[in-house]
């Protein structure tokens, strides 16, 4: 009976978010077969600790499990792609914080045009090239539509960190797309 309660709880609170879970697994591992492994392990972990899940935050809870599983997996597999990036270059920091006064002379904005026209493959490669902490907030926000607070729950960091990483992620992505263009 206990087991059935857990299953019902899992189905009600976690199963609706499994596509989101698989999506973030895919973007963290950057390939689908590894994503499947991470995903299945995450499901088992989630089921084992389903009692700890509070009612209202099933998605953030599940995505946090997937994220932790993915990072553990990457350490085990010594994936170079998971090297963590702590800080910004001075230039990036200024860009992120001052909001582009550096680019003030640029009135016509060919960048917007470039971004609008970027093809899916190039965009995918550019996103995959982002450091994982930037990539995850970008995917959670811009692809999966989570709010800052929910992202903060998933990555276990303050909202301010979510904001600055998101800003850096977007700025880096735009720079990459620009660089690829020229």
């Amino acid at each position, binding site marked *: 009976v206990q087991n059935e309660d857990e299953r019902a709880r899992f189905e009600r609170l976690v199963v609706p978010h499994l596509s989101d879970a698989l999506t973030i697994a895919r973007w963290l591992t950057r390939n689908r077969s590894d994503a499947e492994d991470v995903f299945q392990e995450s499901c088992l972990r989630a*089921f084992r600790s389903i009692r700890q899940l509070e009612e209202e935050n099933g998605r953030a809870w599940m995505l946090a499990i997937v994220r932790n599983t993915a990072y553990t997996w990457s350490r085990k597999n010594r994936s170079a792609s998971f090297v963590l990036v702590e800080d910004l270059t001075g230039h990036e920091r200024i860009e992120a914080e001052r909001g582009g006064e550096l680019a003030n002379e640029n009135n016509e904005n060919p960048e917007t045009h470039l971004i609008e026209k970027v093809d899916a493959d190039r965009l995918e490669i550019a996103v995959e090239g982002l450091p994982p902490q930037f990539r995850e907030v970008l995917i959670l926000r811009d692809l999966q539509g989570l709010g800052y607070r929910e992202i903060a729950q998933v990555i276990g960091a303050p909202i301010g960190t979510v904001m600055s990483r998101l800003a850096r992620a977007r700025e880096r992505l735009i720079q990459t797309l620009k660089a690829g263009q020229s």
Partner: protein
Amino acid sequence: MTSPPNSNNRGQDLGMLVHAYLDGEVDVADAAAIKQQIDANPALATRLENYTALQNALRTRLPREQITPFQLARINTAIVTRRSWARPTWGALAASILLALALSSGSTWLVLRSDQTRLPASDHAGSDRVAFPRELGVLYATFETDKDGPSGYYRETYADQAALDAVKAGKPIPYGTVLVRAVYDVLRDSKGAPAKDANGRLTKTKLLSVNVMEKRAGWGGRYSAGEWDFQSFAPDGTRRAKPSASACFACHNKAQAQDFVFSLDKLKAAKRQGASIWRYFQR
């Protein structure tokens, strides 16, 4: 959130505010003031345009995963048995094929049994005795046109190897057989009519339904379709209402001469190496 972090520090954080504004993470009261500041600063306005374009591109062009009914079924099995599903459940497929299959998380010609003993009671209580399939079987027939209606669907029919072997040997369809039909929507033109490609074929898109018929000793009785029972599932594995099941019985009764299976000839003609990939598209 109620207010953006550092909102009292605007001189330094205008760049951040552009993001918060774009993401709808500022108070309504703050939003107007922030928008004013952005509009007054061409560089910020440009950034807002860029980030908006970027967000739009990410949302519309990056792939999003969609869990398939079979992944869901595997998870179900895994949590019931408290074990990971091992890669060997992918069967005797060569590693290279395995890799290709992993791309679309599909598999074929794996033995298909609805293995009810391992499913929780709720899955086969009362009349809900046909369980959601854990694996696909061998793809033995596809139907690209729908003579039953004008809308057009794409249908794939799968059987397990034991059933294929039996009918090929001229034996009756064995007990325990599970036939699975996956019904997809198809690519449509602007008027909603099925759009055919250059070869006159339909292109399947979103999975609409997983229909299962299962034969067990002693089943039947309420309806006259031999010992078959029927169940239609939504792609997420939830059961569809029963009335459609009785419609199944009524229609399949017409195929009594061929063990109630309309596609028996195709079943007999199926090739063992008919491996194809279960594809599942979100759109």
